[in-house]
């Protein structure tokens, strides 16, 4: 039986189910698969007027140009380095916050704090960038005014790239610390109460209970979170970096990531071919990482592997 016959017979039997799936299928084809043709542009000297199928083929010229420039290494390293900083800091912060919150017995206090922790998750990076501007702008920002009031000189935050890895890492913890702590809290709650009880019978204090029971039992959750973010290590957080840094070229040395670079190539420079080459490079690296991560997962726990 061919696939067509199979579908036709199934269609007759389950026509309403096919109807229910139809909008979703149409969406996936149009927005998930059709854009893949855009990757062809990476091999062309693309001109908007000639379209994808009419432009001149230049094969690997765009890639030669991209890998021959200084930009390639810079944006790749920035993307990897920032993602590793983000991963380590937000997982650590989420873990600590969850463990700490779990020790808080005062229910109202706990609930208020948890609400505050999650608050930054609800605002966009543009809103966050206004808050950062209120804190850091060189003339009137709270930080510089505070530095000046204690006799120190202010810092020109928006022209000094060397501070921005730290600033972005802090902000990432600000935004995702509460979110990650919720994941960890759910894992802590599922730990059997008997473990703690018998530990107390044996005379374990609070710290020993955390160290010998809670933390070891959170290792699986931590592994999942690590693998999820490693799988996306070649994808920079466009909304964050572009929201906070925008087109401020002075900060590019430490903040420019693959995604912001591709965006600028497309929208600021208008070089479609260059942008396509960059994002195809990113996509290929993304697939390679996922295959590697999947191999890792398979050796640790075959049931959790993706394919």
């Amino acid at each position: 039986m061919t696939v067509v016959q199979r579908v036709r017979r199934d269609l007759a039997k389950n026509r309403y189910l096919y109807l229910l799936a139809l909008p979703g299928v149409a969406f996936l084809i149009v927005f998930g698969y059709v854009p893949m043709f855009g990757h062809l542009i990476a091999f062309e000297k693309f001109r908007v007027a000639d379209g994808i199928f009419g432009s001149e083929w230049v094969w690997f010229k765009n890639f030669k140009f991209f890998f021959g420039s200084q930009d390639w290494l810079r944006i790749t390293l920035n993307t990897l380095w920032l993602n590793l900083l983000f991963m380590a800091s937000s997982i650590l912060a989420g873990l600590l916050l969850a463990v700490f919150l779990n020790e808080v017995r005062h229910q109202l206090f706990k609930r208020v704090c948890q609400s505050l922790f999650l608050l930054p998750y609800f605002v966009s990076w543009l809103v966050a960038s206004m808050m950062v501007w209120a804190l850091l702008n060189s003339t009137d920002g709270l930080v510089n005014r505070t530095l000046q009031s204690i006799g120190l000189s202010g810092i020109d935050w928006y022209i000094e790239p060397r501070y921005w890895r730290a600033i972005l890492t802090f902000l990432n913890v600000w935004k995702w610390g509460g979110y990650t702590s919720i994941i960890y809290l759910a894992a802590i709650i599922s730990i059997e109460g008997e473990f703690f009880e018998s530990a107390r019978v044996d005379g374990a204090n609070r710290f020993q209970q955390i160290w010998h029971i809670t933390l070891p039992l959170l290792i699986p959750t931590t592994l999942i979170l690590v693998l999820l973010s490693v799988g996306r290590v070649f994808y920079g957080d466009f909304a964050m970096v572009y929201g906070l840094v925008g087109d401020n070229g002075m900060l590019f040395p430490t903040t420019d990531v693959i995604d912001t670079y591709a965006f600028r190539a497309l929208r600021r420079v208008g070089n479609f071919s260059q942008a396509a080459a960059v994002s195809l490079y990113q996509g290929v690296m993304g697939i390679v990482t996922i295959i590697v991560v999947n191999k890792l997962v398979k050796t640790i726990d075959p049931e959790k592997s993706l394919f």
Partner: protein
Amino acid sequence: MPVLDTVNTKIRMQRAGRIKADVTLGERAFLYSIYASVIAFALFCLIPFWLVVAGSFTPEANLRLDGFRLIPRAFSTYSYEYVIHGNQIGNSYLVSFSVTIVGTLLALAVTVPFAYVLSRKVWISRPLSFLSYFTMVVGGGLVGFYILVSKWLGLKDTKWALILPYLLDPFFVFVLLAYFRTVPEEMIEAAVIDGANDLIVFWRVVCPLSAPIIATIGLFYALRYWNDWWLALLFIDSSANHPLQYMLKQLQATTDARFYIGNPSPRFSTVPNYGVRLATVVMTIGPIILAYPFVQRYFVRGITLGALKG
């Protein structure tokens, strides 16, 4: 309920045991440092919010003179009046609200039925789940997406460009799918025996049973639409189509907000360039903050579900 009662008693005993255990000086110090860290992080989360709210109610002259302060030296609502009397804020609110409402409803209408079909044990559900899975691993790339929306679909500078690209997120499909699998098969079979077809089963049996999770996914979609500015950055030109988030972006880029805010009244001859930004921030996050107490638990639940899935 008796099971719950024993659990509760257990928890109570546990708590009592814990509190009694904190007697030594070291244990107390440990507990206090935990409380101190929790408070410190809560302040770290809150202060940026407080700073913009306080700043938005500060007269422009004081912002320039004293800088941003946690406790401003003077109070004024001029920035808000200035923004509200312009035409851009009304436009942007309208765009943001209509995109969020229409977008969320459409996204649910596309996502929920699709996830339901994937959850059924029919032949088609496997290829469909591969179809959605594959897009999570292999992306279309920025350029293809840009050409698709602006050229092939011809949506440049329309509100549809802000809505259509987010109609289905495979991640939410898999969260819903996991939930739909827990709907008892007997209920669906009973409805089928009573003569219901798949549409009726879906609408009358599955949807009502899954109302909380559907509401949760709806809220995640709504938050995404409300907070998005990426699509506007790519596709929107005319200020009539600027959502609130993108209005902020425009204000950030300008040093004279007069023309963009569009306030012709002579009563507002001085332009509070700082204040305008801050007031717009507060008006942008206002609806979220107002809804926050009521929707927080849904989000907490959604985050937990998503993590379990991952």
